[in-house]
């Protein structure tokens, strides 16, 4: 077993310190870099904290060949699976986008 606190906790704690104490002290020309670092740490923390079981992604070649087009038996299930995977990926890469989509319906 790794020693506690775990990777996600360390990343989150380090990120909070970066944003609270370092970012305000940086010159304007360096704030973009600091925000990128904070964003990268947030993504890494979420990825580490979410060892979720992923659905099997649909076969890209079959999608391209039209096997799952509207009107085919598997269309709805494949569409739903693609959406579920994209939502899980978004929950790690950019959860704000997920919320925006919920608001937009």
């Amino acid at each position, binding site marked *: 077993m790794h020693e506690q606190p775990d990777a996600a906790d360390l990343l989150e704690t380090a990120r909070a310190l970066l944003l609270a104490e370092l970012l305000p002290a940086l010159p304007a020309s360096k704030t*973009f*870099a600091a925000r*990128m*670092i904070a*964003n*990268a740490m947030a*993504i890494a923390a979420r990825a580490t904290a979410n060892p979720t079981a992923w659905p099997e*992604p*649909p*076969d*890209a*070649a079959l*999608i*391209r060949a*039209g096997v799952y*087009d*509207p009107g085919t038996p598997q269309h709805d299930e494949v*569409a739903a699976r*693609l*959406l579920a*995977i*994209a*939502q899980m*990926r*978004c929950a*790690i*890469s*950019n959860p704000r*986008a*997920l919320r*925006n*989509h919920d608001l*937009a319906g």
Partner: protein
Amino acid sequence: MAENTLRIVAASLLSGGAIQQNWALEVEFQGIAQDWVLRTDNAATLAVSLPRAAEYALLKAARAAGVTVPEPLLLCEAPSVAGAPFFVMRRVAGIAAGHRVVKSDTLGGGREALAMALGRELARIHTITPPREDLHFLGAAPEDAALAFIAAQRAALDRQRQPRPALEWGLRHLERTAPSPVPPRLNHNDFRTGNIMVDEASITAVLDWEFAGWGDPAADLGWLCARCWRFGNVAQEAGGIGPRAALYAGYGEVDDARVRWWELAAHIRWAAIAIDQAERHICGVERNLELALTGHIVPELELDILHMVEARDA
């Protein structure tokens, strides 16, 4: 001092431009102080990006067509001078940063006026038609820009390290619903918020011509209107800047259904570019945090694509 002496008083690297370097130059030329921008290549150049000489020719062609672009001043293709080919254009004042432009109700004369002006600029760009000897580097126009787009994107996906079923889903929808071809026009191919410089009164420059090519003019309108290029201000459908109706009014005659098809295409194209940029970091060509984070835009684009396909199929 000779009459044609040029003295560089100051040079500083401008921000922005993952692919190119832009240098702000303060010069004295023939005794007159001038502000110039020198544009040259970064270490790693995207394969789809046009060389500097081509971009220079495009600037000249656009300027002749009445498009608001920085005045092109000189081109130097000899790598011995600055290490890589470069060109110089007159520096234009204004703001381009997308997140700032979409927040302002007054820039460019206000949202309505600015959206109309964007339409007028695009219409001027689209007056340029093939064949053009000065733009020979663009190659032959595709017979069917929509099908050519789908084929090019699929070829790009086949080169990537992992399959992208959500993008395939979008491409298959595009294939099922492709519009019939129209006569080709010059497309800017990156005409979006962030590449348009504005001041309080109006557009001061249409920037970044490195992706230009012959195609369906609705592709430029779709790229500008795509939700992913509204910088969070999704209610203003013309690039987060203003109403779609104002953009269309400024442009002239618009086939809205065709634009919507290219809007979905825009999300797929941006996702493919983002994957390529992240790949430059992953494979080690250019280790860079900004490129690495660009890859994490892809899941949101997949979500956009899936929602758009669902709505369009309903």
